[in-house]
């Protein structure tokens, strides 16, 4: 079996917010090209923090970040990283800062030096791909929660990243939209890491499930078959869980 190259690797990362204890403690995390990793961990265990450290938004106290074959230390090193890795924020209101959807989706491509026409083109294509045709002139703060999520995803995809870090992409989506999102994610030819608290969602998208404990990643926890209780529409009828 050919081992695909490592695109992002965090080695011995320690991080704590000012005045607090360490949230990431000697953490190791590697993403290979083409990986699809699901990250499940309790609230407050530092998943969001991990993503922000990986993007260079938070500076680790110690440890090294290597992306695309180079060690990244300074702010300037991360400019390229951010072009090639897309981060979907946990709160869509953080991600959508432009007045209209088209402005927002085209923002990234414009910053990458595309011309206006190219940027509008990419933006429209991305919106179409996500089934958001006709959303161009919608006002971002008037979108519903689920629509905001999908538009946020569009803003990240429009930058044509090689790796996607998705912070709870499925939260707050209805069943149909979630199905749509799963199809979209499965059709993307990218390396993906997603945080989610929903096993149903992860089992349909991820190859590996990782979890976090005491500021570290625990690798390759095999999916266990388990019995569980939950509410269903049409719960009487037989249904399938993986």
């Amino acid at each position, binding site marked *: 079996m050919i081992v695909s190259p490592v695109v992002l690797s965090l080695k011995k990362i320690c991080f704590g917010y000012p005045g607090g204890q360490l949230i990431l403690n000697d953490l190791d995390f590697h993403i290979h090209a083409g990986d699809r990793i699901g990250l499940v961990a309790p609230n407050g265990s530092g998943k969001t923090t991990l993503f922000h450290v990986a993007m260079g938004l938070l500076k680790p106290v110690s440890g090294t970040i290597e992306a695309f074959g180079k060690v990244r230390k300074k702010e300037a090193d991360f400019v390229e990283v951010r072009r090639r890795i897309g981060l979907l924020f946990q709160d869509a209101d953080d991600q959508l800062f432009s007045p209209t959807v088209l402005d927002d989706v085209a*923002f990234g491509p414009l910053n990458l030096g595309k011309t206006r026409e190219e940027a509008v083109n990419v933006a429209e294509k991305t919106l179409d791909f996500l089934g958001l045709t006709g959303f161009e002139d919608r006002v971002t*703060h008037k979108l519903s929660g689920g629509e905001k999520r999908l538009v946020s995803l569009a803003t990240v995809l429009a930058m044509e990243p090689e790796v996607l870090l998705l912070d709870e992409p499925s939260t707050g989506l209805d069943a149909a939209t979630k199905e749509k999102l799963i199809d979209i994610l499965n059709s993307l030819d990218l390396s993906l890491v997603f945080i989610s608290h929903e096993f149903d969602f992860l089992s349909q998208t991820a190859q590996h499930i990782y979890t976090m404990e005491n500021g570290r990643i625990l690798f390759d926890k095999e999916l266990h078959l388990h019995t569980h209780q939950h509410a269903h529409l049409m719960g009487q009828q037989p249904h399938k869980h993986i």
Partner: protein
Amino acid sequence: MNQDSFAEGHSVIHRIDPRLRLVGAVALAVVVAVSYDFTTLITALALSLLLALMAQLDLRTVIRRLLAPILFLLLLWAVLPWSFKGESFLTWGLITLTRPGITLCAQISLKTIALMVTFMALLATMTVDTLGHALNRLRFPDKLVVMLLITFRYLFVIEQEYRRLLRAMKIRNFQPKTNLHSYRTYAYLIGILFVRASERARRVHGAMICRGFSGKFFSLREFSPHPWNGAFCFFITFSLILLIILEWVV
């Protein structure tokens, strides 16, 4: 929040290039601000009303938005006429109303109303983001444009946050009274709002950096040519010349 209510019309003015409207409004404002002649000021007021008519502004809303400046003007009328020194106009017991005081009040009132109405007709008829893009095209500094647009965008989020907090207080049976508990609660509310706003700012900045933001603002907006643009230019130029002639030549 309903700041965009004027922006949603479909009048002649709404269709005119926002950049022209912006430049026109500023030019009129400058001329009116330095004029003192009553003919000029009354003409300016008439022109502003004409613009408001063309923009098909709702009269009631216009008056409602004029209430605050009118209150301020009333305050001037209450103070200036007797406190200003000069030739007396009317003596009434100990109080003497002076002619220059009254003249000044009348000038300020006319200017204020004329400018407010002009701005409502020309600027309030575009959304804030259109204004931002128009400013950008007129080579306004990127920093200010981005600040304007982002302030506008997050005003809504912060307002929502405020409402959420208020609701959280209400469902736990908070009733505002004049006691320490109420004041402290309001202080917490405001404090939390500030903390959340600054946390939000940090995250939004992160999101912008993640998408390659480096301080440069790009506008996608196309301002398409419209046959009325020429007519509007002519109208504004004509108005400006008329006002200037009335003020300085006649």
